[in-house]
């Protein structure tokens, strides 16, 4: 195995090695197996796929030549299965343990979702088959759309965006289109300081100037500051509700009224919908557009970073601008609108949307029903408040009072201990937890955002609380080294992100190429 075991000079941070670690011949540690890259294991002549020999006919590829060697490694099936199995064993996952990442909603991913998404009638259909041959798919999309509309109280839904941030862009373009249609040139978008980075990034990409609204001492949007910033040049406000501090914006109805009065529109980031789904309809709060992260609120799996889906519910004012493709009812059946018609603002993505995520989300929704969804959001909020109540005497909550589905702490309780939020998080890894979200939202120093979701049993919450109490006490008793040297038991210790950014190595290269480069 071509393992690089040479250090790169000064590693960051300075860390003690695992005290008395049992050195093994292989470098493996029991079930934790060191695994090389596929490129380091391949052999010419190996393959894991048996394909018939193609007939020896002449190539008909115009003036293009057939390519030379690609450089891909050859492996057999046993090797490939072993390789990826070993890789999987280095990952933390919801299936393995509590994953309290604030604003990510790491709830259980039901296996029925996977089975239903894989039915050949859903998985083996092409987006450009004749519409008459995919009526069930269109009906499924429409069913999901109807659930989303009823749960939110909104007038229309654009199903095509491929992820939350994509949905944000869809909603904001709809707003820009609506303003353009009424001949209204507005240049500013208001965004709370606590907003997720995608919000200002989306607004800026559309050419808007982003104007930050400060928060009050109790973590909500400062209504007076907002009033001062509203004006005839404001196109929209982008608010998250509950907000990124885990708090419900109690003035939201008034905010919506003020925004509309100023001729602007209200975009709502739906990342935290899990706190209120089934209990509160965003339409009743006065919003014009909201993206829904199906991979958060509706349990489609996070898959190591994707894929997601970000359908956007729209008010009457914005419905006419929705993009293609769209499923519409046609007599007893359904058809697809594939060319942007009338006032539609265009197209966000090829084909009709993330069907594989629709079937999973629909399965989840049917499993829960209206009563189950209400119970789920209630339990999510209950779990977060239980954690808040159980930790507020040893850790430092950022705000007073109850929270919604996530509890926010700052690093005040670590002051003077020599332990940072990051160090605290790394120590949690050794305890068998994925850390909560850290350093977000930016408005709180050393933020720690804990979102348990409704999937955690009380026993799990109790152990988590006990662990954090233990770690807090340990930090405050002066044992900083325990934290700054963490993790020690994870598949890797802390990694040198500085070196990775200074001299980026983004792919494997054959050794001869590296030697040439060194000359």
């Amino acid at each position, binding site marked *: 195995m071509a393992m690089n075991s040479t250090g790169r000079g000064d590693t960051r941070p300075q860390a003690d090695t695992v005290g008395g670690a049992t050195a093994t011949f292989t470098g493996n540690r029991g079930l934790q197996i060191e695994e090389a890259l596929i490129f380091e294991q391949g052999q010419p002549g190996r393959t894991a796929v048996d394909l018939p020999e193609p007939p020896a006919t002449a190539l008909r590829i115009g003036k293009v030549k057939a390519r030379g060697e690609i450089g891909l490694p050859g492996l057999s099936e046993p090797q490939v299965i072993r390789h990826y199995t070993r890789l999987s064993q280095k990952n933390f996952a919801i299936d393995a343990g509590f994953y309290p990442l604030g604003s990510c909603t790491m709830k259980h991913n039901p296996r029925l979702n996977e089975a239903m998404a894989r039915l050949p009638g859903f998985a083996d259909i092409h987006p450009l088959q004749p519409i008459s041959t995919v009526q069930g798919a269109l009906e499924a999309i429409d069913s999901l759309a109807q659930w989303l509309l009823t749960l939110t109280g909104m007038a229309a839904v654009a199903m095509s965006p491929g992820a939350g941030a994509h949905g944000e862009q869809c909603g904001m373009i709809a707003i820009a289109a609506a303003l353009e249609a009424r001949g209204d040139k507005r240049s500013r978008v208001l965004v709370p300081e606590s907003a997720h980075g995608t919000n200002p990034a989306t607004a800026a990409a559309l050419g808007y100037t982003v104007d930050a609204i400060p928060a009050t001492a109790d973590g909500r949007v400062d209504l007076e500051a907002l009033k001062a910033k509203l004006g005839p040049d404001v196109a929209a406000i982008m608010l998250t509700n509950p907000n990124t501090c885990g708090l419900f914006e109690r003035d939201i109805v008034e905010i919506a009224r003020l925004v509309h009065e100023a001729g602007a529109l209200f975009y709502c980031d739906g990342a935290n919908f899990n706190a209120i789904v089934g209990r509160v309809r965003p339409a009743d709060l006065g919003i014009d557009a909201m993206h829904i992260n199906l991979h958060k609120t509706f349990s489609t799996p996070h898959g190591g970073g994707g894929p997601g889906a970000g359908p956007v519910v729209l008010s009457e004012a914005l419905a006419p601008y929705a993009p293609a493709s769209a499923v519409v009812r046609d007599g007893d059946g359904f058809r697809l609108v594939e060319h942007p018609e009338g006032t539609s603002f265009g197209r966000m993505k090829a084909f009709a949307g993330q069907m594989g995520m629709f079937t999973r989300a629909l399965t989840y929704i049917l499993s829960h029903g209206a009563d189950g969804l209400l119970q789920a959001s209630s339990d999510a909020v209950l779990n977060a408040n239980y954690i808040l109540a159980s930790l507020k005497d040893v850790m430092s909550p950022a705000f007073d009072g109850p929270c919604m589905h996530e509890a926010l702490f700052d690093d005040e309780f670590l002051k003077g201990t020599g332990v940072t939020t990051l160090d605290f998080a790394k120590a949690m890894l050794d305890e068998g937890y994925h850390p909560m979200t850290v350093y977000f939202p930016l408005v709180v120093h050393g933020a720690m955002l804990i979102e348990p979701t409704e999937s955690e049993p009380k026993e799990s919450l109790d152990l988590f609380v006990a662990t954090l109490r233990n770690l807090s006490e340990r930090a405050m008793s002066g044992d900083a080294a325990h934290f700054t040297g963490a993790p020690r038991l994870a598949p890797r210790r802390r990694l040198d992100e500085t070196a990775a950014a*200074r001299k980026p190595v983004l792919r494997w290269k054959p050794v001869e190429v590296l030697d040439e480069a060194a000359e």
Partner: protein
Amino acid sequence: MANIKFTKDHEWIRIEGETAVVGITDYAQQQLGDVVFVELPDVGKTLERGKDAAVVESVKAASEVYAPVDGEVTEINKLLQDQPDTVNTDPHGDGWFFKVKLSDTAQLDVLMNETEYKNMIAELT
């Protein structure tokens, strides 16, 4: 040194006749952490006082470096392209960012001297 001035945004500017050398202070590099990349302006670019002149990136943050004065960029520090860590190890010397030809030397008068800057930092910590 009498010919160094400082901005409230932690840039330093060292006057060398009609041109001046600009960099970020030791305090700034400490706050930033390990510098991984520096984006410098093009030679010949016209800078406006207080507006973006360069970007300095660490692993977790990217910060704008503002122009302390109006002027034209005459030279940039190519060393930083291969060794961005020089900003950390020698922020006032080899870690300089760019040189600018001042269009209005009076703009230097409103900047802080070394003592004033040191006082300002003392209040921050």
